[in-house]
């Protein structure tokens, strides 16, 4: 039945072998290869700690992630397996301190980017189920830790159970300053533009 079913399903294929596709034009290839590779070390992108994040990180109260932290890959995402929860610090007494102006170019430099839905908000800990990884991870869950007293507005973002959020992070620190926040069409479009997927 298996092979027969596969063959019968293949008959429904609208792009059966009789339909030809166009090869990629040289023009398109050249156009793409002329595009700067923003997060590639060779292209002169800034090292991992960018100036805007350094400002934020300095203001942030560092919280030690408890258990389950994974080693983050420095490169892109292989959409293969999912790992243990990723733990990020979401602390910051003044999350708007030393922000730089938001831009897609700056956003694209973040090594970690994902969209997730908040499943729990328990005191200083927020758990998100990852809906989509744009870059830098493969965990199915992400845990955000915040310092005591910041629960209501962690990282300047009012997290609510059931809400969808777009998050970027550098190392183990969430990026603020508009580079993370509720999943609005505008922020979503910026993520898509920045991370290309």
């Amino acid at each position: 039945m298996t092979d027969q079913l596969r063959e019968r399903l293949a008959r429904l294929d609208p792009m059966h072998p009789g339909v030809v596709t166009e090869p990629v034009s040289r023009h398109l290839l050249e156009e793409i290869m002329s595009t700067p590779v923003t997060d590639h070390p060779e292209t002169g992108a800034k090292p991992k700690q960018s100036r805007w994040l350094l400002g934020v990180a300095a203001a942030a109260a560092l919280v030690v992630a408890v258990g389950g932290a994974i080693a983050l890959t420095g490169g892109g995402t292989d959409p293969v397996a999912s790992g243990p929860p990723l733990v990020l610090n979401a602390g910051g007494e003044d999350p708007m301190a030393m922000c730089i102006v938001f831009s897609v170019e700056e956003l694209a430099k973040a090594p970690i980017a994902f969209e997730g839905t908040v499943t729990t908000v328990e005191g200083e800990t927020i758990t998100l189920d990852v809906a989509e990884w744009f870059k830098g991870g493969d965990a199915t869950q992400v845990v955000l830790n915040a310092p005591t007293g910041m629960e209501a507005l962690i990282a300047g973002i009012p997290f609510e159970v059931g809400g969808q959020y777009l998050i970027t992070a550098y190392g183990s620190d969430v990026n603020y300053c508009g580079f993370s926040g509720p999943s609005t069409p505008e922020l979503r479009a910026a993520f898509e533009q920045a991370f290309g997927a």
Partner: protein
Amino acid sequence: MTESACAGQSVFVSSEGERRARFESMATVVSDPVQRYLRRRATAGEADDVFADVLLTIWRRVDDVPDDAVLPWSYGVARRSLSNHRRAASRQLRLVERLEAERAPARVDDPADSLEDEALAAALGALPIADQEILRLWAWEHLEPREIAQTMGTTANAVSLRLSRARKKLADHLTRQDPSPPGHIGDRPTEEHRP
């Protein structure tokens, strides 16, 4: 190729020439299958737009593309890009309606085959979306569970389980005597019920 420290790990970074050569090689490999993948799931216009996005992503992340899974990785990018493209555009037309308008001519010579295909298409369409996609990746892209898992961002075990269940559900749909009202596509005779 040079080595540089990155986030505590060593990563390999291609030179500009190597990057271009690697990208062009990958673009050649993925061009036909990824275009087919997209045309199966999108209109021609969408497919062209998203295909360019896929190539751009490959270019930007050429050092991240696994050598042993270029195609599943690229399908995964195409899948997410198409999803994002639709969300960004806020398009409301149902995919099926759009595809119907642009679908390539079916390869059907025997009218009985046409009826069988309609029944199968209806049965496929009655499955959960994720199951439909797994079956398509299996039958149209000819991927095995491990590759489907790479494409969909899940595990091979999960895919194997879902594929097995989806196949069973599809078989059940096809063999079920459906007392649908006249004209309903589900009451077309299946292969098993054909005289």
